[in-house]
């Protein structure tokens, strides 16, 4: 997979078939995944509008997940024939397509990890003050939404910055995280 194709993928400039193929190629190439993460993260932080560059592809990943509820709720899978024995309801057949979707999930999970968000849904105990009890993993969409806001806030956050370097220093630092995941 060429970098140019990766860029087109990020920009949503590929046809559906090309996108499908590009995602396949991306999933098969860890180094290219790193490049994708790096491109996405840097674009997201630099661009005032947040994670614009990746939204198309991330949407596709999210859509893939949404279209495959069995990944999220494996109990809903239809029984699978396994040599004459009916599989248990909670057995997930890992066929090619499902492997691919699981890979989508892996990418999505890695993307979420980039943001390094600790998310806590709240039951407010005091008006205006959030309770911090209870945690849950944020969904892909929630993670994206928070990331976008953090990125946009970063452009205006100057306090404690070393000469205003903070925002871009975090980008540089952030891509280290990307590269090692």
């Amino acid at each position, binding site marked *: 997979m060429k970098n140019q194709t990766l860029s087109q993928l990020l920009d949503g400039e590929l046809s559906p078939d090309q996108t499908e193929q590009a995602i396949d190629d991306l999933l098969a190439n860890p180094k290219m995944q790193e490049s994708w993460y790096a491109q996405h993260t840097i674009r997201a932080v630099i661009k005032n509008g947040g994670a614009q560059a990746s939204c198309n592809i991330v949407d596709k990943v999210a859509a893939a997940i949404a279209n495959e509820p069995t990944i999220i709720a494996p109990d809903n899978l239809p029984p699978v024939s396994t040599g004459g024995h009916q599989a248990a309801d909670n057995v997930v057949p890992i066929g090619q397509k499902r492997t691919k979707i699981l890979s989508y999930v892996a990418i999505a999970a890695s993307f979420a990890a980039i943001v390094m968000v600790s998310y806590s849904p*709240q039951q407010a105990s005091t008006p205006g003050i959030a309770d911090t009890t209870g945690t849950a993993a944020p969904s892909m969409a929630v993670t994206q*939404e928070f990331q976008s806001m953090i990125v946009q806030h970063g*452009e205006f956050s100057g306090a*404690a*910055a070393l000469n205003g*370097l903070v925002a871009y220093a975090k980008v540089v630092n952030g891509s280290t995280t990307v590269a090692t995941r």
Partner: protein
Amino acid sequence: MSSLAWAGSGDAMSLLAGMSTAADKLDYSGEFVYVKGAKISSMKVVHIGATADSGSQQKLMALDGSMREIIQLDDVVACVLPDQGMGLREKRQTRQLFRFDISNKIETIEQYYTVKPQGATRVANRDCEIVSVKPRDTYRYGYSLCIDREKRLLLSSELLNLEGDVLESYQFISVNFDPVPASDLSSGTPPKTLNWIDDSDEKSTTEMRAEDETIKWQVRKNPAGFELEHYITRISPILKTRITHLVLGDGLAQVSVFVSPADASAIESKASLNMGSLNSSTRKMNGFVITAVGEVPKETVALIADYTEAY
């Protein structure tokens, strides 16, 4: 001047004001470390100060991990990723980055912080004056700053929580104030060896802006002393709809408030988020999702989110 001569907050405030403008005006180069939790990153910076004719320019280069460079030439930013064989050019929508001028916010800062000189020390082999910035209430964090005695460049900075623990810090380990030639801003990677993505044209950025807005938002009563500094309307590529972004500040700290239609948001309930020094608080109101984000205690973002309303 000896550090003992720094007698009061007036001098400390003068240092603060000088610090904010020095960062934009000075030529300097050096290396600094950024520490957050157990993670330490080192970076090299080259900076050419702003003149009457042009804005400041600079280059940051990661010294750890894979090669990464970020080069800022006025309002165009280029990211160079040699290991990935690619580069990215983009145009910034605002010039807020790299600008942190507090010279006109002295009174506001003194209202919410106690600013005191704390003696002198040495950072990056330079004499610097330590300035303690302590919040007068529990709605904001504190800072411990070390400002170059001669050049007024901020050499180190610690963000402190209410208990005085360091949340994150930056510190130069070497710095040089010799004039920086423009050639030093060049990437170490020949541009022709990279595949470039170029988003620096005006069209790509102006398309992000919303043309009109039917509902205006405000944060009433300036909670915790945070006053409106910026009001921005934009199209969110994530939510694919118009969002309103308010930026509030107390002179040093900023809090952003984002308002988006609830039917476009994935955030379903009152929620908060913590990421090191950064906290956020979200709530829903009349079909909108309101999220306050900032490097302030969680109570502050919750209060600001609750005080945000349409008018």
